[in-house]
Structures are given as structure tokens and as C-alpha cells.
């Protein structure tokens, strides 16, 4: 599956999200936990704002020097026996990985959680070529069985509860026990352990690539990335080209921000780092290691007003505070990247044609911008998208264009404005009853479909002020 998840229209997706009471309950309670966790972790750290500033500095510096750091990463990985492949497109990345799998005559591939492989549709590409692919992150494994896309970038199965998971395990894997989380997890562990032991190739994503030493690092709570990178003889890591940390010190800052911003943890249970293949004087490591660095539209973002969107460290803090996400859920965004960061990134990576509603799926409340650990001005970037949709792509509705033309005339001509202020009450009179409008005309309809609109004041403020001045002067 590429970035876009399906063909349903925006309104259909929103509606089905809103009607899914169960999903909304699950999302709301998860958001509550993540939000309070983040705030508590930030408070414990003491100087959260300084950390955010440092995180922003690191990301800004890295992206401004991305050529240098990519080269350094490539050199270091090669020195340690790894092969590096730069993929300009999703297809190039998938083809390279498929070739590695084919050469190894591999039957089974185990994967740890990776958003970039969702973005490029790697699983489908591998399966089409005849490989068996097993997701080993618990959430991803559940979704894989259900053929359901992730709805969140950190906790992909956020929209499911334990009863549904039990059902999935029972129907797909013959599970016979209860829906107690401990029993479900034990079952998953037993099942997945067999997969790890029989896999030929391990594929991981990458949280941060430490360029000074060519190390690819992962943060997980289940330890599955550790098994994926320990057992199979052939290893492949896939990373978006921006996921670089120049030094271990930088990586430490970014991981500290990531785990706290994501779920309020000081540190995840596992932080794993791997470097290339088993070299002559080493006792462990894979026989073969490949690093696939994916562009897939990212380099087009460099140097634009959206460059800081590439600072994203995929913590989902913006998603966890977003009230729009809370009510419509991740699938409504129709992108592997949902929520505010998804609304910013998706049109950049996959164009406006299929995603032109996303930048408007926000009240611009800026909760996302406030929560972002690397200070991406998300709500401002949503406005930039809207400007492009309106002024460059000319994709805004005709009726809206006319209304805004009228707005500009109205707001730049005080006489016209004053007249409208005087006429507002009278012109809305046919729809007004007891000082309330319940069934507004034209653009008011969207408003009054869900709430009342007050009748305009009997006297505009400016007219009141003027008559008051006259009285004071005794006129």
C-alpha cells in the first residue's frame, strides 16, 4: 500500500470515523494517557523548552547539511561492511529489497515496525514477489492479520481493543484463551518466536542513523527490533533520507525527546543500535547488511518553506493532542501519516490531487505546534498548504473564491463595511426568531446545521460609539 490508503471520499471517511463510537472511545482514552504522560515527563525533565530548542537546532543543522551527513553515513556504513542504496522512488527501494531477498532465496522475511516501509508499500511488493512477510511489532502484526492499515504512527493498532484483538487471534491463528492482555501477549510471543527463528531476512526501519559511526538505531518497547536484527543472517534497514543524527550526543537528545513526547517514557525498554556486518575480528552480526535510504519526494521539500516538516522524529505528539484526530481517527486522513504531521507531509509526498482536504482538517488551534518536540510550526505549514491550494493550484471551490473576493472588497472599503454592519440584522431577519437563527442561509447553513447563530446586534458597535460621542459633546 502506498501513502494513500483507499478510495473513499473525504466526507465519507470523516462520517465513518465519527460514527465509529468504539474507535473514538479508544482514541480518546489513549490520547488522554499519552498527553498526560508527555506533560509529566516534560515536567520531570525540568527544562523541556531548552530540550525542544536543542532538538530543533540539531534537526535544522542536520537538514541544512544533509548532503554531507548522507555521504558520511554512506561512507561509515560501507566501512563496516554494509551496502548502501539510495532509492529515489518507492519502486526503486522495493525493487532493490526484492532483489536482495531473491538472491538469498529467502522464503520468510521478518520485519520490525517501520513507517517508511508502509509509505513505500514494501510488504505488498515483497508478497507479490512471493515472499512471506511477518510484521513482528505486536500492533503491526495484528493489523497485518486483519489487513487493516495503521491509524497512528507510534501505536498503529490504537483503534482496536482487546476484544477485537482476541477475535483476530482466534479467527486467524486458532487462539482459544481469554482477552486478558497478558494471555494475548503470551500467545503473540509464542507465535512470533517461531517466525523469528525461521526467518531468512530481517527488515527494520530506522529511528535515527548516527552518521559519525554509521549506526542505525531503533527504539522499541517489545524488543522485536532486537530479534529482527539478531537472528536472520541477512539484514536490511530502510530509512527516510532525513532520519539522521550527526553524533551519538545528538542521537541521545533526539531519543530523549522522542520517547518522552511519544508516550511519556524516559526511555523505551529497548534502544538498539546496529552497525554493518560481522567483520573479521567480530563474533556476531549479520553476514550481509543493506541500508536503503529512501527519498520518495523528500528532496523536493528541501529548500522550501516546508523543510522543517522533515525535522519530524515521528513521535506522534501532534497526533496525540489533536482534537480533530480524536473525533475522526487516523484512517480518516487516508494516508499512512495521519494527524497534523500527516496533513502537512501527505500532500508534500503524494501531491494535492488526492489530499487537498487534509490541510483544512484542522482548526489551526496550534496544539500540534505546541506539542512538537522539535518545534515544527505545523499549523503555519497547514496555512501555507492552503495558500498553495488556493493561489497556485486553484483547487478551492468557486463559491468560496467568490466569497473571498467579496470579503476583500468589503474589508478594504470602510463604507461598504459600515453599510453591511447596519444591514446585517435586517438582512437576516427572515431567518431570525427570538434573537436566534436556527436555519441560516448560504454560508451560514454549515454553521446552523449543528448550532444556533445569534442575531446581529440591534445597533452596531460603531453606531453606538458615534451616538455616545455626540451625546458627550451635547449635540
Amino acid at each position, binding site marked *: 500500500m502506498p501513502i494513500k490508503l483507499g478510495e473513499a471520499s473525504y466526507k465519507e471517511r470523516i462520517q465513518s470515523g465519527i460514527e465509529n463510537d468504539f474507535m473514538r472511545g479508544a482514541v480518546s482514552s489513549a490520547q488522554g494517557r499519552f498527553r498526560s504522560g508527555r506533560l509529566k515527563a516534560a515536567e520531570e525533565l525540568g527544562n523541556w523548552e531548552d530540550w525542544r530548542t536543542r532538538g530543533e537546532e540539531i534537526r535544522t543543522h542536520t537538514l541544512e547539511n544533509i548532503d554531507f551527513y548522507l555521504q558520511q553515513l554512506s561512507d561509515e556504513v560501507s566501512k563496516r561492511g554494509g551496502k548502501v542504496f539510495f532509492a529515489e522512488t518507492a519502486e526503486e527501494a522495493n525493487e532493490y529489497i526484492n532483489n536482495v531477498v531473491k538472491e538469498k532465496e529467502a522464503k520468510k522475511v521478518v520485519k520490525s515496525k517501520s513507517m517508511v516501509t508502509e509509505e513505500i508499500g514494501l510488504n505488498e511488493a515483497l508478497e507479490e514477489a512471493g515472499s512471506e512477510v511477518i510484521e513482528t511489532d505486536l500492533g503491526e502484526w495484528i493489523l497485518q492479520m486483519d489487513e487493516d492499515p495503521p491509524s497512528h504512527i507510534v501505536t498503529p493498532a490504537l483503534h482496536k481493543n482487546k476484544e477485537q484483538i482476541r477475535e483476530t487471534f482466534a479467527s486467524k491463528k486458532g487462539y482459544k484463551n481469554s482477552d486478558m492482555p497478558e494471555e494475548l501477549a503470551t500467545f503473540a510471543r509464542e507465535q512470533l518466536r517461531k517466525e523469528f527463528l525461521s526467518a531468512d531476512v530481517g527488515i527494520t526501519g530506522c529511528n535515527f542513523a548516527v552518521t559519525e559511526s554509521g549506526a542505525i538505531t531503533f527504539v522499541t518497547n517489545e524488543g522485536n527490533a532486537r530479534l529482527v536484527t539478531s537472528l536472520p543472517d541477512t539484514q536490511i534497514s530502510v530509512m527516510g533520507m532525513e532520519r539522521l543524527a550527526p553524533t551519538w550526543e545528538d542521537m541521545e537528545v533526539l531519543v530523549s525527546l522522542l520517547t518522552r513526547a511519544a508516550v511519556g517514557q524516559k526511555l523505551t525498554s529497548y534502544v538498539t543500535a546496529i552497525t554493518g556486518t560481522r567483520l573479521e575480528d567480530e563474533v556476531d552480526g549479520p553476514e550481509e547488511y543493506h541500508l536503503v535510504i529512501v527519498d520518495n519526494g523528500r528532496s523536493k521539500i528541501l529548500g522550501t518553506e516546508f523543510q522543517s516538516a522533515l525535522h519530524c522524529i515521528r513521535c506522534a505528539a501532534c497526533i496525540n493532542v489533536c482534537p480533530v484526530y480524536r473525533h475522526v481517527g487516523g484512517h480518516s486522513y487516508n494516508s499512512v501519516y495521519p494527524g497534523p504531521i500527516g496533513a502537512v507531509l501527505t500532500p508534500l509526498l503524494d501531491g494535492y490531487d488526492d489530499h487537498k482536504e487534509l490541510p483544512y482538517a484542522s482548526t489551526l488551534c496550534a496544539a500540534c505546534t505546541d506539542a512538537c518536540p522539535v518545534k515544527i510550526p505545523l499549523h503555519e505549514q497547514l496555512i501555507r498548504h492552503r495558500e498553495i491550494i488556493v493561489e497556485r493550484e486553484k483547487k478551492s471551490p468557486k463559491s468560496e473564491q467568490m466569497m473571498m473576493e467579496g470579503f476583500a472588497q468589503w474589508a478594504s472599503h470602510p463604507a461598504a463595511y459600515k453599510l453591511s454592519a447596519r444591514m*446585517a440584522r435586517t438582512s437576516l431577519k427572515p431567518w431570525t426568531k427570538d434573537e436566534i437563527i436556527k436555519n441560516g442561509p448560504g454560508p451560514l447553513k454549515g454553521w446552523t446545521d449543528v448550532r444556533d447563530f445569534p442575531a446581529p446586534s440591534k445597533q452596531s458597535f460603531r453606531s453606538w460609539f458615534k451616538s455616545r460621542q455626540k451625546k458627550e459633546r451635547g449635540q
Partner: protein
Amino acid sequence: MKVSLFITCLCDIISSDVGKDTVEVLEKLGCEVDFPEQQTCCGQPAYNSGYLSKSKEAMKQMMKAFKDSEYVVGPSGSCVAMLHEYPQIFKGDPDWEEEANKLAAKSYEFTQFIVDVLGRVDVGSNFKGIVTYHSSCHMTRLLGVKDAPKKLLEQVEGIQLRELPLCEDCCGFGGTFAVKNPEISEQMVKEKTEHIMETEAEYVIGGDMGCLMNIGGKLSRDNRDVKVMHISQVLNS
């Protein structure tokens, strides 16, 4: 102190009482309030919808209107935050950059002005009732005005303040969002009004008529017995 009132189009046309109370409170605090008649709308509806060039026409009108003002004070965090965006919008524009910087530097939200410029927290008001306060997103996050309204409300005699659960969450107004995405907006304002009902307050107070019109409209649609008031109305009691 001379203050020019930035009324905001919503208060001018829809809720003019808020403007009257704003003027009276400022006068009570010793300000001389004038009203530049050339002012219209700050441009936010067009700007936030992506109509940058259209919004600039409104913004230029506002810069002209307040050219000679010493202080510009408005009863809306969101609209004042818009004025504060002007410098970024007109950066590099030889005709307007300086005006944009000047207007932003002298513009204040009503409660921010009272607390930060006039240095007052007790304005001598008296209001009996159980109230809860909704902190509007643009006022808190864009303008950075978090404490001023609460400091002022705490000093009002007779008032009983109740904390609003998840008070920092958006009410679902979002300007044109409310009409472009009414389905989502409805869910957001529903959640907001449910939290308001949980507090068992008689009044919900806010500093932005956009949010209050949204919250009030939903309360009224659901026949809830909670009144919506702008903070200037409470401070003028």
C-alpha cells in the same frame, strides 16, 4: 493613556455589547478610548483559508486605520494574534513592512493590556455566579496570553470559578473550519459543552467571541441553561 479600540468585526456587528463593556472597563481604568472608524476586519478569515493576497487588502486597511494610534486594544486574542502576524506577512514589502511592525508592536488583547500594560488585576468588579473559563487557542498559544484573564477573574468579587476539564482543547470553531467541516466541528463543540456541563457552572466565560459564539450556539441548540459571557462583560459588572 490613549487607547484605540480594535473592535473586531464579530463584536462590531454581532455582539456589540462586548464592545461597549470593553470601552467602559478601559475608561474606568483611566484610559481615553477612541474608535478609528476606518477599521474593518483583521483579514483572518481569508488568511486562514489560504487567500493570502485577498487577506492583505484587509490588513492594509487595518494598518491605515490604526496608523496614528498609541495603543491598539481588542477584545479578542485571535484577532489581535492576527495583527501580530502582519510583520511576517509583509516582511520585505517596502511599502508596508514598517507599518506592519508598528501595528504589531502596539497591539494588545484586552486582558493582556489591563494586566501587562496598565498593571492592574483588580478592576473593582462584582459578579455573583458560578463560572468556568474557556481559554481560547489563539489567545493562549499564538499570543501567549495564558494567565491574564484568570488573574482578572480571580479578583472579581462574588465570583465562583470552576476549572474546565481539558480547557486548553479547541472548541471546534476555527473560523471557516466551522462551516467547511461542520461534522467535525460539531463533535468538538459537543465535547466542549459536555465538559462545561460537568462543571455545573452557570456561566462560561471567554475572551474570544468566535469561540463563545460557537459554544453558545451549541448550548442554545441543546437548550442548556448556561450563559455565555465575554470577560469584558464580567469585568464591567
